[in-house]
């Protein structure tokens, strides 16, 4: 058995037929599949250790607490955080961004301040900043995306004029879920720091795909979702530098995060408890720790290389289809393992419905990126997004299916 076949064997869901054809799962940008080890971690927890954390002195509660805090430590190591207390468990990327957009923005933004983001953000890293800017009387500015097909990526030259001392926060995506563009996160953080701005990296698309080191990146906050990196849904992370998190007012209050409560008021524990009111999502946090273990047995360098290979194969084969419009980096330029494309005469939804007949799972739509789509003169694209268990043969299935669809609609 080849390495790839052995890896695929770890994912029970991949071995099924859809509409009578072998499943070809190319919607990893939306969510990844789960290996047996992660599913087993969930089952093991509920069958053996389930208990509430941080408050019981009995054996199960201690086991659950150890496993939960062990997961925190594991994740800190996964992103090379200086301290496990810098890892806050949340529901996912969206909740993590909202916490910063409420708590941090409320405490630090004044009228006239600027929040800077980019034109390629997922709605999750856009709408919360619009809300925060409105609430504070601040302005939201955008680093432009260059090129008619966004092939030029971010306009780094524009930073000279955009990054003024009025910029208090720069929030940007590491990898665009729509374009496949890989942003120079370390450079963006360095430039922002030079004007005293705080940085937030949306690592939703990069976390399970490449080595991530928050200290080398030099960011203040980094956010991601477990479900895009082989973990369960409903769990994600807000990483923040300890100095920031310990000063940040809690977004939610309640049990577990307080030191002393009187009828008159209460005060807060330091991070991480300060930001985790109520019974946390213990099971999914533990399974996310298992996902880190699993991904590191594959190796993130190897995953990045495989993504890159599949991205390049897909670019070459898709570019050869007449009439196709591919957005994001051009053929031969660096890109993440995903490709978004469109045809003038066939709508993305018709493509997705047809491709499903061939067992293909694709994404069609605006990818939670409406302003960027509008800028590119599009309403939707079809996206194929890869992970380490995908094969080059699956790209052949995709290309054959697209050619058949094109023939059907265009003749």
């Amino acid at each position: 058995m080849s390495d790839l076949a052995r890896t695929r064997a770890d994912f029970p869901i991949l071995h099924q037929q859809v509409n009578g054809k072998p499943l070809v799962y190319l919607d990893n940008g939306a969510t990844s599949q789960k290996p047996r080890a992660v599913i087993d971690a969930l089952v093991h927890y509920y069958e053996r250790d389930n208990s509430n954390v941080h408050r019981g002195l009995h054996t199960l509660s201690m086991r659950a607490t150890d496993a939960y805090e062990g997961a925190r430590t594991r994740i800190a190591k996964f992103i090379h955080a200086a301290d496990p207390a810098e890892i806050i468990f949340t529901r996912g990327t969206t909740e993590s961004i909202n916490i910063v957009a409420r708590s941090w923005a409320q405490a630090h933004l004044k009228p006239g301040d600027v929040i800077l983001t980019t034109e390629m953000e997922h709605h999750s890293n856009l709408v919360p900043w619009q809300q925060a800017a409105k609430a504070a009387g601040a302005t939201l500015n955008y680093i432009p995306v260059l090129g008619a097909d966004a092939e030029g990526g971010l306009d780094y030259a524009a930073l000279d004029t955009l990054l003024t001392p009025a910029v208090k926060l720069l929030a940007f995506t590491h990898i665009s879920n729509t374009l496949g563009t890989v942003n120079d996160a370390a450079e963006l953080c360095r430039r922002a720091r030079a004007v005293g701005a705080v940085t937030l990296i949306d690592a939703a698309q990069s976390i399970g795909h490449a080595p991530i080191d928050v200290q080398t990146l030099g960011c203040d906050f980094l956010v991601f979702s477990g479900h895009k990196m082989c973990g369960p849904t409903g769990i994600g992370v807000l990483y923040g530098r300890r100095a920031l998190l310990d000063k940040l007012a809690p977004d939610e209050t309640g049990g577990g995060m307080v030191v002393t409560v009187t009828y008159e008021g209460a005060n807060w524990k330091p991070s991480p408890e300060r930001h985790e009111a109520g019974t946390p999502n213990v099971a999914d946090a533990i399974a996310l720790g298992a996902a880190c273990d699993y991904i590191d047995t594959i190796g993130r360098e190897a995953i990045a290389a495989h993504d890159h290979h599949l991205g390049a194969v897909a670019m070459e084969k898709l570019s050869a289809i007449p009439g196709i419009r591919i957005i994001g980096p051009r053929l031969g330029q660096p890109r993440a393992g995903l490709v978004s494309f469109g045809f003038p005469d066939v709508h993305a939804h018709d493509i997705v419905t047809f491709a499903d007949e061939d067992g293909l799972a694709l994404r069609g739509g605006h990818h939670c990126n409406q302003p960027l789509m509008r800028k590119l003169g599009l309403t939707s694209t079809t996206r194929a997004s890869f992970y380490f268990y995908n094969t080059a043969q699956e790209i052949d299935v995709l290309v054959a299916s697209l050619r058949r669809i094109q023939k059907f609609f265009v003749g």
Partner: protein
Amino acid sequence: MSADLSELYQQVILDHNRRPRNRGKLPTANRVAHGNNPSCGDECSVYLQLDGDRITNLSFDGSGCAISQASASLMTTQLKGKTAAETQKLYDDFHHIVTTGEAPEDISDLAAFAGVHTFPARIKCATLGWHAALNALKGDPLPATTETHKD
């Protein structure tokens, strides 16, 4: 191609998708309503020229999948001369067709959409233009979205 898929993409639908009827703004329109499907970005505007509560002329404009565009196009060929009550009745029949796959005998080309019922995710596509038309008839200033109307 599977039977379900050829049921969905009937010749009538493909034809309306390739050569939409009554497409573009209607200069004589006295009512307009916009419809959108926020989950996929499909858009459809319907322009009505009303005489009392009778549609004397209509057109549509927008962008979206073959199902949504063909449905809006076909709808414009069916509603000319209809009153508001007749339009509502025709929509109820159409809704029944796309959700159950059962078409009344006398229902003409609308029956081509019977195949939609095996693809529940596409029912919203088929009804988008109709929602906009019904809103335009009511003079409803709100855009019709597939999220505020029940399919």
